[in-house]
C-alpha cells in the first residue's frame, strides 16, 4: 500500500525549543490516523511540517509521494485543512466563504462557478447559505470549516483538533461527517487530545510526547498492550485513612492522583467486588480506554 504521509527521523527546533526530536511516522492511503499528545508535544508542528509551512532541520517529510517543503504547493493543492481555530472569513457569508476559498486553489471557471450546494448540504448549512459567520454556532462553524477544506476534492484531510470546544452533539456530527469522508477513500490525519475521538474515529493512533513518537498502533491494541482491561476509580477524601484500599487489592496496579485512586485489573469480577466494598465512596468501574494508556505513557503532570 502507498504511504500518503511519511516522516523519517524528522527533527525541528524553534530557536531554543526543540519541538520535534526524532519523529518517524507512516500513514497509509485511506486510513484515519490520529496524532495524540499533551499540549506542546509537537502535534501542531507536525501539521506545519506536513503542509510545508516550515522546513525540518533533519530528516525527510514526504506527503502524497512528494518531498516537502520542496513541493509544498502541489501537496497543499491536493490537501484539505481544517485549522484549530476555524479562521472563517467574517466579512463573508457562508456560501461566499466556500467560493472565495475555492479561488485560492485556482479553481476558476469549472469548479468555482459550480454549485456549492453539495458542500453546503454536506455541512448541513443549506438553510444558512446567506448567513454571516457571526450568526453561526460553534458546531456550524466547524462544519463549514470542514466543507471548506473539501473545495479542492482533496486526497488528504488534515484536521487540527477538529472537535475542540464543541458540545457532544456537535462533536458526534463532525465524527459522522469525517467517517463519510473516509468512506469516499480520503486519507485523514487528525490531531486531538480527546481520546474518545481517537478511539471512535482512528484506525491507528500515534502517541507523541516531547517531540517523539512513543507508541503507534490501533486504539485497541494500545489499550491491550499498556493497561489492564478493567479500571476502578474511587474518590477518597484526602483526610481519610488511605489504608483501606491496600488490603483489598493487594497485587493489583494502583495509582493515587489527588483524591482519586485508580485500580487496574484483568479481572472484571474483582473490580465489581471492590466497587461494592467502596460503596460509601464515590466510585465507578469502567473499561480501560485510551485515556489510561495516554496518561500512563505521558504522565499525569499538567502541561501548560
Amino acid at each position, binding site marked *: 500500500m502507498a504511504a500518503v504521509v511519511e516522516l523519517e527521523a524528522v527533527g525541528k527546533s*524553534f*530557536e531554543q525549543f526543540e519541538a520535534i526530536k526524532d519523529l518517524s511516522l507512516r500513514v497509509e492511503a485511506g486510513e484515519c490516523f490520529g496524532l495524540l499528545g499533551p499540549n506542546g508535544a509537537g502535534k501542531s508542528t507536525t501539521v506545519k511540517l506536513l*503542509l510545508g*509551512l*516550515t522546513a525540518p532541520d533533519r530528516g525527510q517529510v514526504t506527503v502524497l509521494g512528494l518531498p516537502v517543503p520542496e513541493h509544498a*504547493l*502541489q501537496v*497543499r*493543492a*491536493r490537501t484539505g*485543512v481544517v*485549522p484549530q*481555530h476555524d*479562521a472563517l*472569513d*467574517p*466579512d*463573508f457569508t457562508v456560501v*461566499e466563504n466556500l467560493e*472565495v*476559498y475555492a*479561488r*485560492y*486553489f*485556482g*479553481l476558476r471557471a*469549472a*469548479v468555482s462557478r459550480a454549485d456549492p450546494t453539495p458542500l453546503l448540504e454536506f455541512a448541513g448549512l443549506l438553510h444558512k447559505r446567506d448567513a454571516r459567520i457571526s450568526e453561526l454556532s460553534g458546531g456550524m462553524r466547524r462544519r463549514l470549516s470542514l466543507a471548506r477544506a473539501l473545495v*479542492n*476534492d482533496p486526497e488528504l484531510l488534515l484536521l487540527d483538533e477538529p472537535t475542540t470546544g464543541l458540545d457532544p452533539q456537535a462533536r458526534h456530527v463532525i465524527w459522522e461527517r469525517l467517517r463519510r469522508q473516509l468512506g469516499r477513500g480520503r486519507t485523514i490525519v487528525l490531531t486531538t487530545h480527546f481520546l474518545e475521538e481517537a478511539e471512535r474515529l482512528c484506525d491507528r493512533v500515534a502517541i507523541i510526547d516531547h517531540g517523539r513518537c512513543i507508541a503507534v498502533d490501533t486504539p485497541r491494541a494500545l489499550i491491550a498492550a499498556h493497561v489492564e482491561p478493567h479500571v476502578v476509580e474511587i474518590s477518597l477524601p484526602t483526610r481519610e485513612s488511605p489504608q483501606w484500599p491496600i488490603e483489598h487489592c493487594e497485587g493489583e496496579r494502583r495509582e493515587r492522583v489527588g483524591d482519586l485512586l485508580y485500580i487496574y485489573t484483568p479481572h472484571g469480577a474483582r473490580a465489581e467486588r471492590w466497587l461494592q466494598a467502596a460503596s460509601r465512596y464515590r466510585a465507578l468501574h469502567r473499561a480501560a480506554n485510551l485515556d489510561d494508556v495516554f496518561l500512563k505513557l505521558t504522565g499525569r503532570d499538567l502541561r501548560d
Partner: protein
Amino acid sequence: MTEPVPAWSRFWPIYRRNLLVWRRLAPASLVGNVVEPLITLLAFGYGLGSLLREVEGVPYIAFLAAGSLCMSATMAASFESLYSAFSRMHVQKTWETLLNAPLVLRDILIAEWLWAASKGVLSGCAILLVAALLNVSREPMMLLTIPVIVAVGLCFAAMGLIINAIARSYDFFNFYFTLVLMPMIFISGVYYPIDQLPSWLALVASKLPLAAAVDLARPLFLGHWPTDPLPSVLIILAWTMGALWWAHHLTARRFRS
C-alpha cells in the same frame, strides 16, 4: 482540476477577496479615504488661502492641491497596510488560512501591497477629481499626476507592511503615524514650500519619498513638466523596492517562529 496556478497570478484571488469585502463596506471606507483629505484641502485651501493669496506664484489652494493628492494617497495606503492588513494577518488569521491553500507568503504580501496601494490611488484620484471640478487647475496635464499617485500608493503601502510585520498590536501603529508620517507630511512640501525649512531639514526632506512625489506632482498639476524629475523618480523607486524587500524579510521571519 487542481493544476498548478502560475506564480505571477496567485496574488489575484487574495486581492480580489479584499476588493469584495471593500465593495460591501465602500461608503464608510470612502468617508475616511476621500472626505477627510477633501475637508483638509477645502479648509486650508480656501480658509488659509484667503490670508495667503499666492504661494510660488499660484493661489494657495492650487499650491496645496498637488500636495493633498499625495498626502491622501499616503494616508489611505498606510491605513490599509497597517490597520486592515494587521487585522487580516493577526486578528482574523486570514493569512494563515491562505497559507493552507497552495499560496506562499510572497503572494499574500504582493496582494496586500497592491491592494493598499489601490486604496491610496482611489483616495488620491478622488481628490484630483474634486480639484478639477472646483476648477483649481484646468490643465489637462494634471492627469499626469495619476502615475505619481500610483507611485505614492505603492511606496507607502510597502512601508506600511514593514510596520505591520513588526507590530504586536494596533497601538503600535500610533508610533508610526505620529512619529513618522505626520512629521514627514509637514516637511515634505505639502503645506508650504520645502525651502521654508532650515537647510539641513530641507536636505533630509528632499530624500523622503513624499517630498519627491510632491516635487513631481505639483508642476504636473499646474500644467508644466518638472524641471529635474529623474532624482525624484529614483528616490520613490528606491524607497519602494527597499521597503518591499524589507517587509517580505520581516514578515517571513514573523511567520517562521
